[in-house]
């Protein structure tokens, strides 16, 4: 038998000035459910709470209604009071007679009347409330970081330093990501490799980090604390255990026509190659599409010459499943292929290149050894036009969003250009310069004021190659309203930042959300920028949206701290206000599973039937499934039909 204790608060004068508190108590104390009723000046104060504890002890009440402020304010306070007396904390309910009554009603009579009504409803409701137990979930305290760019490396290092094991998964042959390809970096112009390489080495040598390159996720099962991730390692045809990284194989390999990804396709490399000199690990991989041994059973030079006998031509992909408690997704971005920009020549003009290609052209480890020569004829370009927003802010051809980093790297490019070609003239075609980071605006001003770069406000309309080998770049100088053109030796397109090609596939494997463009969606854009809607899966770096290095690193560290916070406990506590399916009522239609944002609903066998089952670790308690289920087979603890309908019905 439910015996409800009712406690009405004055909140100083906040409530009592409008609501006749005494009348409330007097009216309600005779309700059959009520076993005790009392008023007090400040219910949330220690003496106020003591009142509840005492009533539980002395009057053996087993349900509590506190009529006071908003439950958002003090529900936890009163739950604790119940718990301290051994009563289940979910057996308390609050009537909000301050925010919803005394503060918004003019007339004292009306207010009192409303308060009585509000409290009565909670008395009716609390009777239907069930005791609930917090959910504890055990967990595996190893994390996996998917993607070995700067964001992933940073996250892995921080978790490892926090003394937890972490697997750093990278699909390419080396960690480092896009940052490894950059020359110097804004806003300080320090050399990218100089600051990145030590981190890559540190990650490789850290006892808590296991780097797995050439590997991809194939399947993800489980939920926070207990994920099962199936990883596939691609065939590389080189035994990483044996290889000593001498590089003789790539020197001797006769097939030298493989487009060099690291150099953004500006040159070619051998069929067996270490991706770049500073790669971690520095172990070569054979490209089976080009290797003559694999394709036509000829050659075999590398195997003959390898001092470590590391070449294995009969290599095959291998799968393995690992158990982890948390996942960080740090798969980064790719640069858009500007081929759709036929007005800029598509891919027809050899000297119209992308930002990344420019990075490689000025890099000392690049195809020209750091000498800036244009691709078509090796001439040093004396006039270069840098075109911003190519593929960004263009919903017609590519993306509506702003890529965020290209304004800054274009300013950087103009400076690098001036450092390489002091007598050259750089032009930038822009719409708006977006430079809101610390010292960013100053950086752009430096390009304009000190390096004499001409910033032309107007989007490039078209590029035409001239007979003399120059490129005529047409635009409007919108600040004076005049159609103009510049004859350039080379054009650099700031091509948009795009999600990886397989971004959506991975998201679907992980059960995380992604936006219309394919960037992963954070749980809340402001307050949960690291979390995904799925517990235990976190985001870092440019896979969530275009980002520069500082922000990618910040997010890597933030994701690591989320993982460490999760791992600080031995088990996970979850709110018990989640949904459960009554398998005897469920028809197995699984409509509920379509509305669940957290993929918490799965199919299971129940006798001869197939029914829905809700995974407690995944359910977040939104109740969307409850409203969807036609058979009323689902109950949401804390917000059951009984509880809500009682509130609706018992209104007078």
């Amino acid at each position, binding site marked *: 038998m439910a015996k409800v204790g009712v406690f009405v608060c004055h909140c100083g004068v906040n409530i009592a000035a409008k609501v006749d508190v005494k009348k409330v108590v007097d009216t309600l104390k005779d309700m059959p459910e009520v076993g005790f009723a009392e008023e007090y000046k400040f219910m949330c104060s220690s003496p106020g709470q003591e009142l509840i504890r005492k009533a539980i002890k002395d009057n053996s009440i087993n349900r509590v209604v506190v009529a006071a402020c908003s439950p958002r304010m003090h529900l936890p306070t009163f739950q604790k009071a119940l718990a301290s007396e051994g009563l289940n904390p979910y057996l308390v309910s609050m009537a909000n007679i301050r925010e919803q009554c005394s503060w918004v009603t003019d007339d004292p009579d009306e207010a009192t009347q409303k308060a009585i009504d509000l409290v009565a409803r909670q008395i009716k409701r609390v009777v239907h409330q069930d005791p609930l137990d917090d959910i504890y979930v055990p967990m595996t305290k190893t994390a996996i970081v998917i993607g070995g760019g700067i964001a992933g490396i940073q996250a892995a290092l921080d978790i490892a330093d926090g003394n937890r094991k972490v697997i750093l998964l990278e699909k390419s042959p080396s960690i480092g990501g896009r940052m490894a390809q950059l020359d110097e970096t804004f806003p300080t112009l320090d050399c990218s490799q100089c600051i990145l390489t030590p981190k890559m080495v540190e990650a490789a040598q850290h006892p808590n980090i296991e780097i797995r390159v050439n590997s991809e996720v194939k399947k993800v099962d489980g939920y926070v604390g207990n994920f099962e991730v199936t990883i596939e390692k691609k065939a590389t045809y080189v035994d990483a255990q044996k290889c000593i990284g001498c590089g003789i194989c790539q020197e001797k390999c006769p097939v030298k026509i493989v487009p060099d990804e690291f150099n953004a396709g500006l040159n070619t490399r051998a069929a067996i190659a270490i991706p770049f000199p500073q790669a971690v690990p520095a172990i070569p991989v054979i490209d089976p599409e080009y290797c003559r041994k694999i394709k036509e059973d000829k050659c075999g030079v590398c195997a003959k010459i390898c001092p470590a006998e590391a070449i294995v031509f009969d290599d095959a992909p291998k799968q393995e499943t690992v158990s982890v408690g948390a996942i960080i997704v740090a798969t980064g971005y790719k640069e858009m292929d500007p081929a759709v920009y036929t007005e800029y020549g598509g891919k027809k003009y050899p000297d119209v290149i992308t930002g990344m290609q420019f990075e490689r052209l000025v890099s000392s480890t690049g195809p020209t050894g750091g000498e800036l020569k244009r691709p078509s004829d090796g001439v040093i370009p004396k006039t270069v036009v840098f075109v911003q927003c190519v593929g960004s*802010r263009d919903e*017609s051809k590519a993306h509506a969003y702003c890529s965020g980093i290209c304004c800054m790297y274009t300013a950087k490019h103009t400076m690098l250009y001036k450092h390489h070609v002091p007598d050259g003239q750089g032009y930038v075609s822009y*719409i708006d310069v977006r430079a809101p980071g610390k010292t960013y605006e100053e950086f752009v001003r430096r390009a304009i004021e000190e390096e004499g770069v001409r910033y032309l406000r*107007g989007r490039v*309309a*078209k590029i035409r190659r001239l007979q003399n080998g120059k490129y005529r770049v047409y635009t409007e100088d*919108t600040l004076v*309203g005049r*159609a103009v053109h510049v004859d350039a030796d080379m054009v650099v397109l700031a091509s948009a930042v795009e999600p990886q090609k397989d971004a959506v596939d991975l998201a679907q494997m992980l059960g995380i959300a992604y936006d219309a463009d394919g960037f992963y969606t954070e749980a809340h854009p402001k307050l949960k920028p690291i979390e995904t809607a799925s517990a235990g899966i976190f985001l870092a770096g440019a896979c969530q949206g275009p980002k520069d290095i500082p922000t990618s690193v910040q997010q890597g560290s933030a994701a690591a701290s989320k993982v460490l916070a999760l791992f600080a406990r031995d088990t996970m506590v979850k709110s018990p206000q989640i949904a459960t399916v009554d398998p005897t009522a469920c028809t197995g239609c699984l409509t509920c599973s379509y509305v669940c944002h957290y993929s918490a609903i799965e199919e299971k066998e129940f006798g001869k039937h197939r029914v829905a089952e809700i995974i407690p670790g995944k359910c977040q308690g939104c109740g969307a499934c409850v409203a969807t289920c036609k058979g009323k087979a689902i109950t949401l603890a804390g917000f059951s039909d009984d509880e809500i309908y009682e509130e609706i019905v018992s209104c007078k």
Partner: protein
Amino acid sequence: MHETNKEWLPGFDKKFAELTHQMVKDLEKCLQCGKCTGQCPAAKLSSYNPREIIRDLRMGNVEKVISSHELWLCFFCSGCYAVCPRDINFPFAVSMLRYAALAQGYGWEEVKKIKDPYAQDYYSTGLSVNVNERNLGVRKEIAKNSGTDGRIETVRRKMGLPPKRRVSERAMSEIKFIADATGMTDLFKEINKKKAKEKKWNYGSPADMVKVKKGANQKFIDVEDEEKEKIC
């Protein structure tokens, strides 16, 4: 700088409400990026600037736009639409704006120029192009090339065709009916009678006014000089 009246001119909005409201909505998408103007053939040769016209419309300077010479410079090449990152169909807007101009009494001298060769022919022959070659130079060339008198009628006959393309009686009576019933005929008459209002505005930045562009419209430059004070 801007007109005080930020609304469409009275009458115009009522008549073309559906079209114009959609159009104005479309123009709101404009990024003012200038890609359109950068490739516009008319902008290259004159003070015409599609981006600026959009800007003016967005700021409510409607009368300035519809009373301008520039409104009548568009080639309708749709190059601006082809490059526009927001898919703004500007030539369509120009066409509508020209109706707006006419509704307010501007631009009649321009449509008069078009009406005479094309519309007149349409009304009398069903085709907007006449078989008579007005340009004697061309006729001379054709005569040379074909060994005839250079008239298209003759060439057509030589090809085994009737002297000019036939349009059936029925077709003629039908299009005349449509023209009469829908007010086209009246409009043709009106075009003849209309006296154009004097144009009030013209575009062009101060830089354009000092520097005569190669091949640019001399007439406009003159006007610009007169109007300089008004603009600055």
